[in-house]
């Protein structure tokens, strides 16, 4: 595996700068990371999928992190892989606002559909433009977002929740 090709995929830094993103210091796994503003996210994703430079055809994962004491609080992280070289890149975008929102990339990578639904379900991040944003792992009428740091690990008594929703 060519070290350079993996750690500096062609054109990644250029594409990042073009949308005004900033490159982040490398992590323990050596995957190049960049942070973009939510407004430029779709542009960045399109340029990653189509080029110029190394094309990242597969969106591997969309996940979210709750920085409980940070401002902004929610961070959405995308991992993309190139089929040609197997290289990975990581894109991060803060989800700001109330409710925290970020544009949906399902138009560019259809696989984001369920990943974004899960991020919405677990963290409460809204993905604008998502075709069908509803809960995926929890029941549809559930309230609360389990992976947030202020959600108890033991969960919330379903009795209390459902007694409120269905008083009879």
């Amino acid at each position, binding site marked *: *595996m060519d070290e350079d090709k993996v750690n500096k995929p062609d054109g990644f830094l250029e594409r990042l700068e073009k949308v005004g993103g900033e490159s982040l210091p490398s992590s323990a*796994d050596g995957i190049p990371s960049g942070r973009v503003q939510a407004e430029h996210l779709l542009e960045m994703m399109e340029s990653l999928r189509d080029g110029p430079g190394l094309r990242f055809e597969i969106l*591997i994962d969309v*996940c979210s992190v709750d920085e409980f004491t940070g401002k902004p609080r929610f961070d959405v992280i995308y991992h993309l892989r190139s089929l040609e070289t197997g290289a990975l890149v990581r894109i991060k975008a803060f989800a700001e606002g109330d409710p925290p929102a970020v544009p949906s990339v399902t138009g560019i990578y259809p696989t984001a559909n*369920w990943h974004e639904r899960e991020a919405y379900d677990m963290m409460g991040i809204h993905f604008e433009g998502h075709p069908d944003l509803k809960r995926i*792992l*929890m029941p549809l009428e559930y309230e609360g977002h389990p*992976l947030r740091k202020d959600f108890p690990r033991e969960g919330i008594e379903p009795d209390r929740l459902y007694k409120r929703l269905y008083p009879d």
Partner: protein
Amino acid sequence: MTETGEKELHVEEMILNMGPQHPATHGVLRVILTLDGETIVNAEPVVGYLHRGKEKHGEDLTYTQFITFTDRLDYVSSMANNVGWCMAVEKLLGIELTERCEYLRVIVCELTRIASHLIWIGCSALDLGAATVFFHSFREREKIYDLFDAFSGLRMNNGFMRIGGMAGDIAPEVIRAIDDFTAEFPGYLDEYELLLSNNRIFIDRTRGVGAISASDAIGLGLTGPNLRGSGPSFDLRKNAPYLAYDRLDFDIAVGTVGDCYDRYMVRVEEMRQSARIIRQAIKDLPGGPVYPDSVKKMILPPKSRVYTRMEELIHQFKIVTDLRPPAGEVYVATEVPKGELGFYIVSRGGTSPYRLRVRSPSFTNLQALPVMAKGRLFSDMTAIIGALDFVMGEVDR
């Protein structure tokens, strides 16, 4: 009344619930089907019936404790998940594995791949009516269980991997038994192929069913045999090698059309290649310790020393209570039987991860179900579900 005076047939679409309890959905999958007669208009999978909150639990457990949780993600290929998790934490800690550990992990992962595909071939053939294959493939899987039992003490959900190495070494007798198994395994594969590959009924039920183009597969994020069935020759063991895969010689099976038959052939060929990998790895297996000296502080020392020596006693205490990787983040992916399993760990320097994300292949692969099922007949659902080969434990976590 139409012109000829006949009554017009009133047709409407029917919504059928293929409920979470169903023998052919391979776990607790619910599919809400919109049917026009027997034709599927839409098949919407509803998941979450096996959601156990593993990612939330991970934030409260130590890195070693989470190994048992990774077993139960894709519960038919436990040790492959263990290896993925351990590799992610090892990346975070910057640990170099010993060569023996790398080869042993390859052997265990490939045995797990064979075991997982045996369940797949048995269950998906059973769903299509070919019950004989089920009994035969589970007989082979019992042999693999015996091998797992011999070195790890458990048949399933072994959790045999540790951060920096393995929980123990694999004895030479067990290695010989694994070698004997892989020597006779291609013969068994020939038996299954005799029953299925040229079987008129099997071909009719899987040829052309659930076809997905390469670009659709890539767009939907399919990985593993589901992606390779459509054409792209992408396998993390070759394209982003890890452990000892770059030193071993094997081929990647790809399909052309991306239908259920192609995915079936890809997995059968993968089983053959796995047997080939195991035999090579056994031949090349180096001696030496299973974990490097540098991780003495991360793996529980042998109890005989813990009870008698001060140093090991302190290590035991610190390992159980106080294993702290440096702050940072990693994403490490491995090629498990279902596709690409990735662990994204955000560490803030504590004993537990700050955020733990499991990128499960089955979750992403299951998204392709509506695309594959649209326009097919209802009885194709079992063929498509079988060929997708997902495990609900991994989908829901």
